[in-house]
């Protein structure tokens, strides 16, 4: 439909490519250089000697453990979200009770309660119940703070299921539970993958809760490992950037193979 090529847009898109791509390139290139090579060549040079040493150093420095911890937290958070959000969204969409409407409003307000705002009492509560420096103490608040967005997204998806389908099942005498498993869940697959993607990213990239609620190396998550590494070895830029690459590697691998699902998922979060 559009006639001549849009040169201005083409140029703009290349500028943006440089803004996004260059830092990523510098990061990758620097992480594969030795400290002396990086210091003499500077960040913008094209490296002539590459070495995986920085990455190996990371793993001998305990990053493997941080990886494992982060993976545990991520899986647990996604599991909690998938366990409690679908029934909640189902109740919000289908229930006629005033209580569920009120609950929905609470979750909507929860959307804008930033984690920063409750971090002090969270620290108090988690310490009081003895979960300080325990992965469970990170998992629970992280999952709780993923709930509002996930609920919003999933209710949006479930509302698109036509009333006739429920009525047809009701005529067959299906109970609320049967409708949930036979009708609602199968038709909400897109929404379920969206909230999986969203909560997994929240958990993997989470920083504030681990920062405040954990302390020891045994319960350290990868973002915190990164932060500590910067505080302690800020001058070791190639090592630091290798750590950054490592922290994003699993997500980038998923992105490579499931880009569409991931982007659709995030688009669902933004669009709803």
């Amino acid at each position: 439909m559009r006639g001549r090529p849009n040169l201005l847009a083409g140029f703009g898109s290349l500028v943006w490519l440089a803004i996004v791509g260059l830092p990523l390139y510098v990061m990758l290139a620097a992480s594969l250089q030795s400290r002396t090579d990086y210091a003499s060549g500077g960040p913008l040079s094209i490296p002539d000697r590459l070495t995986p040493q920085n990455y190996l150093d990371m793993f001998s420095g305990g990053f493997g453990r941080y990886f494992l911890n982060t993976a545990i937290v991520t899986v647990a958070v996604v599991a909690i979200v998938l366990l409690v959000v679908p029934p909640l969204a189902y109740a919000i969409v289908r229930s006629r009770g005033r209580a569920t409407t009120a609950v929905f409003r609470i979750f909507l307000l929860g959307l804008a309660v930033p984690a920063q705002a409750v971090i002090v009492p969270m620290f108090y509560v988690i310490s009081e119940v003895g979960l300080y420096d325990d992965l469970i103490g990170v998992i629970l608040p992280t999952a709780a703070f993923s709930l509002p967005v996930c609920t919003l997204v999933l209710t949006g998806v479930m509302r698109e299921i036509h009333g006739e389908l429920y009525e047809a099942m009701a005529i067959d005498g299906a109970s609320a539970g049967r409708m949930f498993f036979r009708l609602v869940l199968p038709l909400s697959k897109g929404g379920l993958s969206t909230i999986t993607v969203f909560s997994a990213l929240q958990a993997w990239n989470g920083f504030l809760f681990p920062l405040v609620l954990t302390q020891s190396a045994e319960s350290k998550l990868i973002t915190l490992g990164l932060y500590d590494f910067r505080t302690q070895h800020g001058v070791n830029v190639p090592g630091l950037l290798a750590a950054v690459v490592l922290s994003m590697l699993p997500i980038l691998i998923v992105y490579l193979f499931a880009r569409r699902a991931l982007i659709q998922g995030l688009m669902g979060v933004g669009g709803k």
Partner: protein
Amino acid sequence: MTSLTAASAGRLRAARRPGAASSRPGFLWALPATVFFALFALVPLVLVAVLSFTEWNGLGDPVFVGMDNWSALLDDPVMLKSVWLSLLLTALGVAFQTPFSILLGVWAAGKQRNRAVLSAIYFIPLLLSATAISVLWRSLLDPNFGVPAEAEWLFGDGNLFGSQSGALAVLVFVGVWQFTPFHTLIYQGAARAIPQVLYQAAEIDGAGRVRRFLHITLPQLRNAIVTSVILMVVGGLTTFDIVLILTQGGPGTDTTITAYYMYDKAFKGFQFGAASAVSLVLVVTATLISLLVVRLSGYDRMRGSTEGL
């Protein structure tokens, strides 16, 4: 017509017969999520209000001190400055991110193959943690080992973090780098939903590309703009990670925004009571904006998009 009405009346009756009540989920279905959310989000929210009237150093028990924290907060020049800085950073973020993400989103909504490939790269920052992004930029902009040391014509003495304007510029820039992809995504989705008929009609009328953008695309993106701007405002007011890693609130307190000030008071100064008062200011601001979200977007009216079609 009559038979249709009779059929739907029959269905209504069927839905109302005894036992049909159980075909709708009760409150029990909402209970687990609600209890969980109440315990870990609402209880702390109430506690933050309670703690703001106490003095607590992180050990032992909080001691009730009445309005002390609040009156101290009112006289605290850093607090006032932090609110002002939060608003400034948020406004700058909206001002820079919105035009970029609208243009990129509309561009990426096109079907061409090269756009799909480029978009794949553009969206990468979306996946990265604020921590990773901040550490990356902190290293790239390092005064001694980073890019500024190589490009003095652009960066002057190279110490971007040494002045308030420099540090703010870094924060705004990194914010743009981090969040533009997300908002681009919102606009891409919205731009794809614009009916092609509108463009065809405009083309027949001889409207050029710029006019089509200004008179069709922009007005059609209105809802997306509202959503995106509100998300930017909420996100901007609660920016924390990038400040902690990039500037530590400095130089001095020149980039100490409210969220960072709260963290600083609590976990560096161990004044948890005073920090709670700061938190509460954050909560109230965020809640007011959240109410605005609900109002403007119509989320609370519970309507599916297929209804009325």
